[in-house]
């Protein structure tokens, strides 16, 4: 029967061409949608690598007129002591403005021997690890002991360590960054500081010392569970008194995370709605074509019933025909889709593409089965004498 249906489809290739194209385009759209969904889902399920709850971010600018590095360092140190002295504060970290979930980024190429990678650069102090509770895989976070050493201390994430050093030991090795040598003191787990749906990045943490105090743009304050709005107000007032002529803003990382996630989710939802409309159109088109086929093929259906086909086998034939057509379009679609993992397009993991391909294939088959079942059942219910008479 399958060979018979192939012959029938092949002999009607001109009529079937547009239907095959429609299913092909649907597959490619669904492949794109599922790739995004799978990519975001895989990222979402990855561990975050740090804690953001009860961490507040204070954005500020250094006081105007203070250009001397030592003065800035001394000012920041006294500021840190002030905040730390507050009873609701657990810990304080100074950092450049590209703190977790912020819109700021600082990335550049870093290299080790002949390997060069684009990495996010974070200028942070010694307390940063404890404020965000990074998990150290090996080595140690930089500390006061690293001050004055010939090579600036740096901590990298596991992904970057793997790229630079493979399975070798990264601790004590050097990385080239903007013409300087950085010494790796520690490796932390990968972090998702750009939002829950963002993929793994290369992260390089550089210790803030007297020379790069000017980079500081934010203070991360880890507060105790008792910290409330009243404390936030007190903190704001205290900082305003110390940092004069500067705009100060206190944000909660939890809120920043929501905002950052929305930046990914909103376009995704818009894309899903657009794709949803497209799929509804395709489904209606498919349904219409199959329905039209039945009215056009009533004579053939009647004849098949006359020569021995039961209602069930007529219905099965129509659904199988639709599935064969979708298989043909999927074969063409798969040819294009597999190029993405093979050619490493968009630098996504191959398994993201393969899962998306499987989902898109299953979706198209499901769509075709749903759209062909009802017309198939309608065809099965036609009385043979009626179908033959209407031809």
């Amino acid at each position: 029967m399958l060979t018979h249906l192939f012959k029938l489809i092949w002999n009607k290739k001109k009529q079937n061409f547009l239907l095959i194209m429609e299913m092909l385009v649907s597959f490619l759209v669904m492949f794109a949608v599922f790739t995004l969904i799978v990519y975001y889902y895989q990222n979402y399920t990855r561990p975050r690598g740090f804690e953001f709850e009860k961490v507040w971010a204070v954005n500020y600018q250094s006081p105007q007129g203070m250009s001397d590095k030592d003065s800035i360092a001394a000012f920041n140190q006294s500021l840190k002591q002030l905040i730390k002295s507050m009873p609701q504060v657990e810990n304080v970290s100074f950092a450049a403005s590209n703190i977790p979930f912020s819109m700021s980024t600082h990335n550049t190429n870093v290299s080790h021997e002949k390997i060069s990678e684009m990495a996010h650069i974070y200028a942070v102090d010694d307390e940063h690890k404890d404020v965000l509770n990074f998990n150290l895989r090996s080595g140690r976070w930089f500390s006061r002991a690293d001050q004055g050493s010939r090579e600036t201390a740096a901590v990298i994430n596991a992904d970057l360590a793997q790229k630079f050093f493979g399975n070798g030991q990264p601790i004590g090795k050097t990385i080239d960054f903007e013409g300087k040598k950085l010494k790796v003191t520690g490796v932390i787990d990968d972090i998702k500081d750009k939002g829950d749906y963002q993929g793994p990045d290369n992260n390089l943490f550089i210790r803030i010392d007297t020379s790069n105090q000017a980079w500081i743009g934010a203070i991360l304050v880890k507060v105790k569970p008792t910290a409330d709005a009243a404390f936030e107000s007190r903190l704001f007032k205290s900082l305003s008194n110390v940092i004069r002529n500067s705009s100060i803003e206190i944000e909660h990382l939890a809120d920043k995370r929501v905002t950052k996630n929305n930046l990914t989710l909103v376009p995704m939802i818009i894309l899903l709605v657009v794709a949803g409309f497209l799929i509804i159109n395709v489904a209606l088109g498919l349904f219409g074509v199959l329905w039209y086929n039945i009215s056009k093929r009533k004579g053939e259906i009647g004849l098949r019933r006359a020569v021995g086909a039961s209602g069930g086998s007529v219905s099965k034939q129509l659904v199988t025909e639709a599935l064969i057509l979708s298989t043909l379009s999927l074969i063409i679609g798969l040819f294009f889709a597999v190029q993405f993992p093979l050619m490493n397009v968009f630098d996504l993991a191959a398994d993201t593409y393969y899962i998306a391909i499987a989902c898109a294939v299953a979706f198209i088959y499901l769509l075709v089965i749903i759209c062909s079942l009802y017309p198939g059942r309608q065809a099965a219910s036609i009385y043979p004498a009626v179908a033959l008479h209407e031809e």
Partner: protein
Amino acid sequence: MIRLQNIEKVYRTETVETLALNSISLDVPKGEFLSIMGPSGCGKSTLLNIMGLLDAPSKGGIQIDAQATGNLSDKQLAQFRNQKIGFIFQSYHLINDLKVLDNVELPLLYRSSTAKERKQLATEVLEKVGLSNRVKHFPTQLSGGQKQRVAIARAIVGRPEIILADEPTGNLDSAMGNEIMEILINLNRQEGTTIVMVTHDEQMARKTHRLVRLFDGSQVQ
């Protein structure tokens, strides 16, 4: 071979009730070539459809080969048609998207036969109806007579005991019609196939063993 008992067929719409067949009782013995005649709309084709289990009577019973068909399921009826009955239609009912050979193989697709067996049987019957040189043609490339011969080949490929022909020569000129009639007569004589033929043509009807006339849904002869 075929026994119709008090067959009645009523077509109902919301406002109208039409009696298409009125208390028809008919016995068609095995090996008979029976023709049914009557004016247009008298119920000839309806009777043939009921005999061929393509339509259900409103009242009455049908026995084919001593088997009552009233309680058979859709699947059983389909199997019955496939095994016992071959159909020939005035408008041929060939599938234009299939080649002649594939059209003839059609009834065998609903049996458990291999592709090789199907091809062999279809080739044999096409040879029988003189179309062995048109195997790879599409129906649209054939004349009316050739199309009807393909339809006959399709009807007999499954070696049915009964052939029901609904005006098989109706769309053909007299020469072609005679050719088709010859094939049917030979089938009846040589294979002993029971044939029931609906026709408008008195001359064709006279070539058969028995003639039944219908008028306004009732048997008048």
